[in-house]
Structure formats: structure tokens, C-alpha cells
């Protein structure tokens, strides 16, 4: 089990010694039990860092934001930025490194192993708490100690853990500068792709029936895109205007941006958006599950992404986020890639 003090000490030392310019981590939120992402700059702020089952966010996103801020300010960083990273966060960092979004030396990864636990899915916990809102959630061994107005109770992590954690095989940050906790890679809490498997067993009509309902419900708030560290593009295929304007951008380009997807939140546009996003994440998605967590209308986005992940793994032997050096999935091929579907 991770002692949060170790995270704080590491962060404080790095800041105190001037080795990093900031540390991305979690602190207690202002509403209820949920932690929130934070960026601290002073050694004394390290004491505010937390580590609990509500540290759900993929903090790699904030490395992307940091990079964007630097570019926007036309600054270069003299020191790396540190980040507290779970296994999935670290995998996302690896993909970002693979795509040269920043350099390895720009990042100091304080790895934290989830060991035999994971983060909480409050939707799963709610019925067990009988509607009472949690005021504090902490690790209790591998399980979760949840405090509500009715007092404290321990919930078995396997019951209320996020699905992505149940299916996670590498709860350990493989890429890190320092790491806390034990490597429990290969743990097997729940069969991988089980939901996917079940879904695919349905026939075509049932699958469409399901997805059309999901696509219809999307309100295009783009939380799925915004929360995703892989969606680091400054301009997205769904944007209706040219976002990246440079001196060389022509008036024609500004005026005639391709309208692949209209702004209307209707089925055709929503479906195209979600499928495009999943295709753009193929071989890049590390299944941190954040898109699904943040969706305000509960669209099971992990299904789409894990579908692509399984194709990457099982069809092409490709593991997203496994190595910094390798080629990207869709920019490469193997001679024996399947082609039976081609006439």
C-alpha cells in the first residue's frame, strides 16, 4: 500500500532541490470526497497532495496542457515538469513520447503503482451507500474506506472499482523516474474485453439498435475529447472553423474548412464523431477510461475504444503505450496483416 507521505516527500524534494519546475498531482477537491488534479510549484504545497481511490483522472492530460501553455507563451522550459502517474497515466505518457509531443527529459515521472487496487466508480458505489454522498474516500488495504453522513464503511474494491481498473493488466507505471509500490502487472481481476465480447455476440441489428440510441443521446459537450490526453490536437475534425491560424494560412483555408461533421448534435453527426475519434485513437488509446467516466449522459465510450484496442492487440500484435520507440499502429504494417476481407 502506498503511503501518501512518500508522494509528498518526493514532490517536495524535487521542488526544493529545483529539479523540476512544478509537480502535477491530486489534491482534495472542494466538493465532497473527490480529489481534483492540481499543479503545485512550491515545496510547501506538496503537503496538499493526496492519493486515494478518487484519483481517477489521467494526469497526462496536464502534461499536454503544460506543453500548450508553453507554446502559447512562446517559452521553453528550463527544467522538467514532474507528474504523479498511475499505470494508465504512464502508458499515456509513453504514447505522447512516442508521438514526440514532448521529450523524455522534459518529464519527471513519479510512478505510483495501483498494486492490487484501483480507482472508485462512484456510480457503482452509490447504491451501496444508500444515496448518501461520500465525504471522504480512502484506501483501506486494497479496499475502499468510505465516509458518509452515516459513518464509515469499507467497500470491497472489486465491487466498486472502475471497470477499466478491473480489466487493467499493468497497474504499474512501466516508464518512470521513481516508483512507489509493487509491480502487480499481469493481475487478472476480470477478463479483458469481456463486455466487448458480450456486446459482439449480439446480432447486427441489435448492435445498431444499441449504438443509435447512444449516438442520439450525445450532446456533443466534447468532454470525452477534452479529457483525453491523446486528443491533443489543437484543431479537431469536428471543429467548424479553422483553429490553427498561422501567417501562411490562406483566406481560402479559413473560409473553406472541411465540414466533415456538422455542429448539430444529431445521430449522423454524433455517430461520425464518435467513430472518427475511436479510429483516431486506434493503437493510441491506453484504456484509462476517462472518456467514459466523464460522459454526462453515460455513453459507454470504452466499448468503442476497447474494440479498437482489441483489434490492435489481437489482429496486429500491437500494444499501445508499451514502448516509446516503436512505430504507430496505422503508420506501419506487417506483411501478414489480415486481408481476407478484401475481394
Amino acid at each position: 500500500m502506498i503511503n501518501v507521505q512518500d508522494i509528498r516527500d518526493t514532490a517536495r524534494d524535487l521542488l526544493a532541490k529545483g529539479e523540476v519546475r512544478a509537480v502535477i498531482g491530486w489534491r482534495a477537491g472542494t466538493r465532497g470526497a473527490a480529489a481534483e488534479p492540481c499543479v503545485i510549484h512550491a515545496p510547501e504545497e506538496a503537503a496538499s497532495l493526496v492519493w486515494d481511490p478518487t484519483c481517477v483522472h489521467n494526469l497526462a492530460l496536464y502534461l499536454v496542457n503544460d506543453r500548450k501553455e508553453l507554446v502559447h507563451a512562446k517559452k521553453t522550459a528550463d527544467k522538467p515538469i514532474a507528474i504523479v502517474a498511475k499505470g494508465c497515466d504512464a502508458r499515456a505518457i509513453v504514447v505522447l513520447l512516442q508521438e514526440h509531443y514532448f521529450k523524455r527529459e522534459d518529464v519527471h515521472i513519479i510512478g505510483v503503482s495501483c498494486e492490487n487496487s484501483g480507482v472508485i466508480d462512484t456510480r457503482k458505489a452509490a447504491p451501496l451507500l444508500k444515496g448518501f454522498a461520500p465525504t471522504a474516500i480512502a484506501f483501506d488495504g486494497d479496499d475502499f474506506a468510505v465516509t458518509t453522513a452515516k459513518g464509515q464503511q469499507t467497500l470491497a474494491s472489486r465491487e466498486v472499482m472502475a471497470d477499466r481498473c478491473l480489466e487493467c493488466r499493468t497497474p504499474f507505471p512501466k516508464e518512470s523516474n521513481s516508483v512507489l509500490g509493487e509491480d502487480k502487472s499481469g493481475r487478472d481481476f476480470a477478463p479483458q474485453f469481456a463486455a466487448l465480447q458480450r456486446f459482439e455476440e449480439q446480432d447486427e441489428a441489435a448492435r445498431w439498435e444499441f449504438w443509435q440510441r447512444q449516438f442520439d443521446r450525445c450532446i456533443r459537450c466534447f468532454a470525452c475529447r477534452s479529457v483525453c490526453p491523446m486528443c491533443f490536437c489543437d484543431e479537431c475534425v469536428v471543429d467548424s472553423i479553422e483553429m490553427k491560424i498561422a501567417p501562411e494560412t490562406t483566406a481560402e483555408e479559413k473560409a473553406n474548412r472541411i465540414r466533415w461533421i456538422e455542429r448539430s448534435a444529431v445521430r449522423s453527426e454524433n455517430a461520425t464523431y464518435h467513430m472518427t475519434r475511436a479510429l483516431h485513437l486506434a493503437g493510441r488509446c491506453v484504456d484509462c477510461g476517462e472518456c467514459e467516466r466523464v460522459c454526462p449522459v453515460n455513453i459507454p465510450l470504452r466499448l468503442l475504444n476497447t474494440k479498437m484496442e482489441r483489434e490492435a492487440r489481437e489482429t496486429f500484435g500491437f500494444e499501445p503505450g508499451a514502448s516509446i520507440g516503436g512505430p504507430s499502429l496505422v503508420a506501419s504494417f506487417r506483411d501478414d496483416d489480415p486481408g481476407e476481407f478484401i475481394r
Partner: protein
Amino acid sequence: MSMEKILDKARLNDWAAALAQGDWQVHAPALEDGVWTYKPVAGDVDLDYPNTKQPPKDFAFPQREIFFAFEHIKGQAPKLVETKPQAPQCAVFGVRPCDGRGAVRMDRVFGENVNDPYYQARRENTAYIGLACNSAPAPSCFCKSVGGSPVSTDGLDILLTDLGDRYAVQAVTPTGEALIGAADKLFAKMAAADKKQLDKTHAEALAAPQRAVKDAAGAPAALKAGFESPVWEEMAKPCIGCGICTFLCPTCHCFDINDEMTSMSPPKGVRVRTWDNCQFPDFTMHTSGHNPRETLGTRLRQRVSHKFRYFHENFGMLQCTGCGRCVSECPVGIDIVAVVNKVAEHVA
């Protein structure tokens, strides 16, 4: 109060069914894929819900509205055909007082300085049947601190109050009276005991503790003073720039207008209005490439300032109704209450 009645809980569905069989399309909260949403119903209305994920604002201000269709045949003048909304009469059950107050604000935006015919056409045909919050539906509620109340009738046609086995039914508009009139026989007179219980229930609701914006009245001035405060960027640090807070807000009303083509030969299509969102980077993007609100902090400031300052300057009331959706639904815990309090604290 112009009309006060008592409805046996068992008769609620009969009332709804009577409306549905009459001239009304009846909507009520329903749980779909784990999300409380307004759905058309034939009569089965169950008001055991916290609050809907989305406010009822899209009854009058749908996410997509077609203004007109156009066609341009070469050598001819462009043809325009206006599309008037064919809005059915909707009776919406289960509107919380905060969302009723949201409707009041939307009405002012689309009916005071400008008269938006599309909004008006829909709004005129929409009746809100509210449900008083005997206890706060969510820990994120803060209506009282922004001038609202869990039992407010603002913007509603009828307010229902749960009295255990029956509802107190208070009609506050002629439409509300008509809704009761449509099934008059189902309702009983409000007896003195009922009235007493109603008052007690309301009083308890008003007395229940809530989160609070510390000084809502002082907020417009505080935010003005704090316009350049570093707090904005600091508070926005975790922000991911998504549109949940505004798309789920009962009073956000910004929109974009686009032409969607149905044919290019000859050019044919529709002009549509869709919701827009000040949290998106393209919201204030200029064609020059300059974006005055490029950072997350400036966008957070815009949202919060609109709610607590600009709207007040324009309409003399806070725009925020304290429904708490932006707080509970933010994926990273950005909390408008904390932000307003912190900026105020910072300028004090």
C-alpha cells in the same frame, strides 16, 4: 396564489393521462441508461427523482433549431423558406424550482430586448409543472444563496409539493389553472390541515442547510474588481475545456448559426442554430487567428462572470439559479461556488 388544490398521489398518473389524452404532450423525468431525462409519457409519471441531468431548457431552446431552408438555382434569385417550429403543447412534469427560475432568465434573454420567434413559439406552448425540493436533491445545490428557494414558483405554471401520500398543487399562472381544469375532478380542495402541512414543509425546506455563495449580492462588484485576478487561471488549472458545465446549465443560451447543406448541385440546405459553448476554444476565435479567450482561465472567467456579473448588469438579476449541475457534473471538480467565493475573497 390563484389556485391551490390537493392531488392524491395515486391520481397523479390519471392527471397526466388526462392531459396526454387532451391537447398536451406530457413529459416527465425517466431514467434512461442511468441518466434522468425528460421523456414523453402516456401518463405514468413518477416524481421520485433527484433532478434531471439536463434542465428542461431545450423545450423552448432546443440544441438544434432550423431557421429556414434555402436553395440557389443558377441564374435565379435564392429561394428562402422559413421554418416555423411546429411546437406541440408540452406539459413538463417534475421541473425543480431552480430550473423554473432558469426559464425566467431564458425568457428574458429571448423575449426582452429581442423577440426570438423560434423560442417564443416553443415557450408559449410549454407548461412547467414544478416539484418543490423538500430536501435538496443533490449535495451540490445552492439555490438559496443566489436568491432562489427550494419552493420557488418562479417560471413555473404549477408547483407540486410532496406531502407524503398527496401533492399540494399550486397553480400560479392561467396555464397552470387550465392544466388543473383539464382534469378538475381528480383534485380536492386544499383543507386547512393541508395548508398547514404545506407551509411547514416549505419552511423546513427553506431552513435546510445548503452550500452557499458567500455574498451573492456582492458578487457582481467583486467579479468586476477581480477581473484581472490570478485566481481565474489558478482555479482553471484542472479545467479540461469541455462543455458539460454550460450545456447542462439551465440558463446558458449561447448559440452558433451554420448552414447545413442538403445538396450542392444546386446549392440547397438549411440554416440552423445550435447551442454553442463559451468553454470551447473556437467560441471567441477571430478569423485573424487571434483568440481573446485562448486560455482556460479566461474562459472560466467568462462563464462565471456571465452568471454572476454580466447578466446582472443587463437584467438586474443573477443568472445562476444554484442548480449545482456544473458543480456535480464537472469531471475535474471545478466548483462555481468555490470560484466566486475565492475571487471575492481575493479582491476583499
